[in-house]
């Protein structure tokens, strides 16, 4: 077996192991035997069934879904922006989603509307950035997009700051802070049923175009001379990645680092070819966020926000990868 195949096998094995572990550990420990019995349809105690199916099940699936979606979107963006330090929020999807959620909280709307607003906010923000960025002709199209993303992101950030300032400090402000930190604790099966198809819808074009995506890593002229309509392909990639990220962020809040770190690590393992990179990045992203979320709910008596933990793990890991890498990306 070559090193590449080994990477997939190890990542898949880690994912399965972590999933079993995530179901087992927690305030109410469940043995692996009980989990397997439940999966096999054999009778188990009602407590075990509730904990596994109602409490941990949605949360574990959410971690897998959000981790895989953020990693896939990050993989697409890093290739498209020809930059391994790009994360899925570079065009403002997270900031837009955050503003949407903050508006909903500010208006004292329910959870359902917070998610809808977050999802819509992400799409609107990227749509706006893309619309303005692609109208700045005569510049490198990628640079125009990134710079528009930065300034629009800053603007949206100010709007969030204003709403936080105006928000009721006893009810709304904690809710806003909590949302902005990101969490998988409150995810319901219904959230998953909405987010998963949207994320899959975003994934489909990436899978189909996996070969062509590679050509976006070339300078624009070269890709076009090789027969790629780069403008159209970029539009598709931005739409797909935004859909995936917005679907994830709407249910989880902002969880940083996954979309930046994981594609990078995967690329070091299997190289930059998108068709090979995407599946591994998704496996690693799912495994990473599941591990982080499991730690979040077990290392302390209170829940630790996953965004804090991904940053704590991500920063040294990233620096280590960077120091370790002898070759460029």
């Amino acid at each position: 077996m070559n090193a590449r195949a080994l990477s997939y096998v190890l990542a898949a094995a880690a994912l399965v192991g972590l999933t079993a572990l995530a179901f087992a550990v927690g305030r109410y420990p469940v043995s692996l035997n009980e989990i397997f019995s439940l999966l096999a349809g054999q009778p188990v105690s009602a407590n075990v069934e509730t904990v596994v199916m109602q409490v941990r099940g949605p949360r574990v699936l959410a971690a897998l879904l959000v981790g895989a979606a953020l990693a896939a979107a990050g993989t697409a963006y890093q290739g498209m922006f020809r930059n391994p330090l790009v994360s899925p929020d570079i065009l403002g999807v997270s900031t837009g989603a955050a503003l949407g959620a903050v508006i909903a909280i500010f208006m004292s709307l329910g959870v359902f509307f917070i998610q809808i607003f977050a999802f819509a906010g992400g799409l609107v923000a990227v749509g706006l950035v893309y619309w303005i960025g692609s109208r700045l002709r005569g510049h490198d199209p990628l640079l125009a997009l990134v710079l528009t993303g930065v300034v629009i992101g800053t603007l949206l950030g100010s709007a969030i700051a204003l709403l936080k300032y105006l928000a009721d400090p006893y009810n709304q402000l904690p809710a806003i802070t909590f949302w902005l930190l990101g969490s998988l604790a409150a995810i319901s099966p219904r959230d998953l049923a909405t987010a998963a198809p949207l994320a899959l819808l975003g994934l489909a074009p990436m899978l189909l175009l996996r070969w062509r995506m590679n050509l976006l890593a070339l300078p624009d002229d070269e890709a076009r001379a090789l027969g790629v309509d780069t403008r159209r392909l970029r539009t598709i990639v931005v739409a797909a990645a935004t859909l995936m990220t917005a679907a994830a962020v709407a249910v989880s809040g902002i969880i940083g680092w996954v979309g930046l770190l994981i594609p990078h690590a995967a690329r070091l393992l299997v190289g930059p070819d998108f068709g090979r990179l995407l599946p591994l990045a998704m496996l690693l992203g799912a495994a990473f966020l599941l591990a982080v979320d499991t730690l979040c709910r077990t290392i302390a008596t209170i829940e630790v926000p996953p965004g804090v933990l991904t940053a704590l793990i991500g920063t040294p890991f990233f620096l280590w990868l960077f120091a370790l890498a002898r070759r460029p990306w």
Partner: protein
Amino acid sequence: MLAVDSLAFGFPGRTVGRDVSFTLAPGEVMCVLGPNGGGKTTLFRTLLGLLVPHGGSIGLGGSPLSSLSRGEIARRVGYVPQGHAAYFAYTVREFVLMGRTAHLGAFASPAKKDHLVANRALESLGIAHLADKPVTEISGGERQLALVARALAQEPRLLVLDEPTAMLDFGNQVRVLERIGALAGSGIAILFSSHDPDHAFLCARRALLLAEGRVLEIGAPRDVIRADTLERMYRVSVQVLPLPGGMHTCLPAIRP
């Protein structure tokens, strides 16, 4: 194969050159000479449909260039750009396979046949041993050869090479010129630019002298590459010396 008529070209809002007319037949090699900033690269980008012409017409294999899609152009014209900034560590093989894109469906990945074409391109340039090396780890000259291989993988009928020898050592320059001759022998039309007028003598049937965006002269190298035309283009004194066997070479006079 290529018919250019009274072409005006440039960037949006800024015309760089005008009144360029020439034709290129299958198997013919034409060398474009001209000073830096003379419009060679802009002309090539226009011929590839990467820039919109400001006037005149470009015909490719009998069809107007403007009527062809990006894929249709890529199946007819191979492009070797001037140098290449490698961002990611694709292997040379993966890099050359990207030349097959226009022959693949939108959702397809390279198949066995595409690998064969890519391997043949690598072998013909003598870089098959680099196939599994990352493009970020090979030398500038090797990368230039990989770019040529990628263009050959397009299986083009016209090859446009923008200063293909600029980054190469003397031996690799000669090897690329030899490949240009051999490719023309197989029926591919070739348009290349160079900073060395000797390259036109070595392998081009015709030379196009381009200065300030206009055609100074166009014709057989020995007719148009003269001391006076070179001095006009480059503003230096040059002797064009005949060599035994009918060859010519250019020797600049260095003023103390």
